Every structure is written in C-alpha cells, then in structure tokens.
C-alpha cells in the first residue's frame, strides 16, 4: 500500500528545527520593504548579471527560457514563501528569466550578505542548500515527465502538483479548487505541449468529471480519483 508522504515528512527530523531557524534568520536579514511586481514584470532578466536572492511574499512567478526561434519553456513555478535566486551565489549571470505571473511582492538580500550570514550561521547555509535540494527534486520530477510521460500524465501531474503545493502552504481550499493564473499557452509551455493539445486533454479530463478549468480556476470534480490515477506513475514519493 502506498504511504502518504509530504515534503515535510521526507525532511530529516534532526534538521527540521535548524532549517526553520535558518529561514527565519535569512528572512530577518532581507530588505524590510518588498519589491512590488505587476503581472508580466521581469524580476530577473535572462542571461543578464544578477546579484540578489529573493523571498517571495505574495503572488506567483515563473522561471522560463526563450529559445532564439521563439519557443519557450516555463521551467518552474514559484509560490509564496519560497526562497529564489540562490544560484546568484555561484553564478554571475542567470540563464533564465524570472517573471511575475500575478501581482507579486518579494524581499531580497544581496548574495554577498547572504554568504556572509551563511558563513556565520550554519542554519542559514543549510536552509539555502535545502531550498536548492527542493528545487532539484521538482526539476527531476519534470525531467521524468517531459522525457517519458504522455500529455495526459503531464497535465494531470501539473494540476495535482500545484494542488499539493498550495495545500502545503496552508491554502486549505486547494483540495477542491484553486486559482491558476496561467494562460493556456503558459501551461503548454510548462508541460511541453501545444495549446491545441492542452485544450484537447482538458476536454478529455472534463468529460468524465475529473477536473475543469474555468476562468483561471482549477475545479476538481467528482472523479478526481481518476486524475490521481493518471498522474501517479509520474509523481514522486511526496505526491508531486
């Protein structure tokens, strides 16, 4: 029988309190006034130098890369409370763009200040490393899906991953419905399909009443269990 796990339960118990303290210390050292972004604003420009690490306070953001011929891959979605841009500690330029998908706000810290803090406080260093590990876990999931999953599995896993991430963030209603501030094109760019294909798969999901997307809202219907069955082979231990 499958064991229900969560990201929190996978984290080693002996580091949990250290991780919590590290995040608290890092947030305390960040700029007190958040940077406010409107939908479509670019927080980090693709291939340009960047020197800040961010804590997302509100809103959704995405990391994406646009190819020279115009094709675009939305690599990952960022939700509130996550620490972003940690790679600026190691890299002068960011290979991808970070864009606000909704009105958003984020506080920031210069990478040198973060490094200095981490060198003094192991908990901060550990939290930065943990966030990178979390990001890597999600990227591994999408590596598997984009390499091996079909369109239905990708879309089902995408909708359920967001449900589970939002629930973990404390959005209790996400189990039944949640706002999805992505266009069909952005969904397609994230899961490696075309908009036509996304539209057809969504219609297939709607007919047996698994899930519906209406006016930027994902609504799970009576047969959501079927959607979970479709996604299961390409979900990880955490259910993402």
């Amino acid at each position, binding site marked *: 029988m499958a064991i229900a796990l969560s990201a929190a339960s996978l984290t080693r118990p002996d580091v949990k309190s250290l991780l919590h303290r590290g995040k608290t210390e890092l947030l305390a050292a960040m700029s007190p006034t958040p940077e406010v972004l409107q939908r479509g604003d670019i927080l980090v420009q693709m291939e340009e130098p960047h020197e800040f690490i961010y804590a997302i306070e509100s809103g959704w953001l995405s990391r994406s890369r646009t190819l020279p*011929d*115009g*094709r675009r891959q939305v690599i990952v979605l960022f939700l509130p409370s996550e620490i972003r841009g940690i790679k600026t500690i190691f890299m002068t330029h960011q290979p991808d763009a970070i864009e606000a998908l909704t009105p958003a706000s984020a506080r920031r810290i210069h990478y040198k200040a973060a490094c200095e803090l981490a060198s003094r406080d192991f908990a901060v260093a550990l939290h930065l490393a943990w966030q990178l590990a979390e990001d890597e876990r999600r990227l591994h999931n999408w590596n598997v899906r984009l390499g091996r*999953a*079909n*369109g*239905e*599995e*990708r879309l089902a896993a995408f909708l359920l991953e967001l449900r589970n991430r939002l629930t973990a963030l404390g959005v209790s209603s996400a189990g039944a419905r949640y706002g999805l501030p992505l266009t069909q094109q952005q969904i*397609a760019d994230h899961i*490696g*399909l*075309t*908009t*036509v*294909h996304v539209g*057809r798969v969504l219609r*297939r999901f709607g*007919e*047996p009443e*698994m899930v519906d997307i209406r006016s930027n809202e994902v609504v799970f219907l009576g047969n959501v269990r*079927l*959607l979970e*069955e*479709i996604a299961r082979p390409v979900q990880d231990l955490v259910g993402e």
Partner: protein
Amino acid sequence: MPQRAPDKKHKLGGQGQAALWLGESLILALLESNLLEIETILEAIDIVIGAKKAKAAKDNAYVCRAALTQLASISASIAAAKATSNQAGVEPRPRSRQRRSPS
C-alpha cells in the same frame, strides 16, 4: 468602437494559425480514435520539416523559420499524445459522430 479590419499580414497569419490548429486537432482526434499511429504522423512532420529547411535555404527564410518553430513544437507535443485513457478508466472518444438523418 468597431474593430479595424485586419491588414493583409494579420489576415495571412490568422489563416495560417487556423490551418495549423485545425490540422493538429484533427491529427490528435485521429490518434485518439486509433486511426493513426504516432510514428506515422511524426514521420510525416519530419518530411515537412525537411522540405521547409530546404526551402529556407533558398527563399522566404523568415516565414520558413517561423514554420519550422511551429512544426518542432507540434512534433514534440504529438510525441506525447499516447493516451492513458484505459489505465484511468476513461473511455476513448467515439470514432465518429452520429450523422443526422436527412430530412
């Protein structure tokens, strides 16, 4: 306020997009109905990509490159079209719609 009539460029773009979306939707419908094999379609798209590449080297390079981008995206998307419907208990769509009887 009435919308301005589309200029020639937008009209052509609209026609191209409509044709492409219709074509892709039909391909997906045929795949879902098991009337086509994915490999057959991917091979057909590869042939078109080859032809477009050859044409891009001669003339109309900008349009050909834009077409190649679209074809590459469609090819990648169709490659992921294998349905999981039977695993999840979702019945495939009917192969054809009931025709209306002539009145």
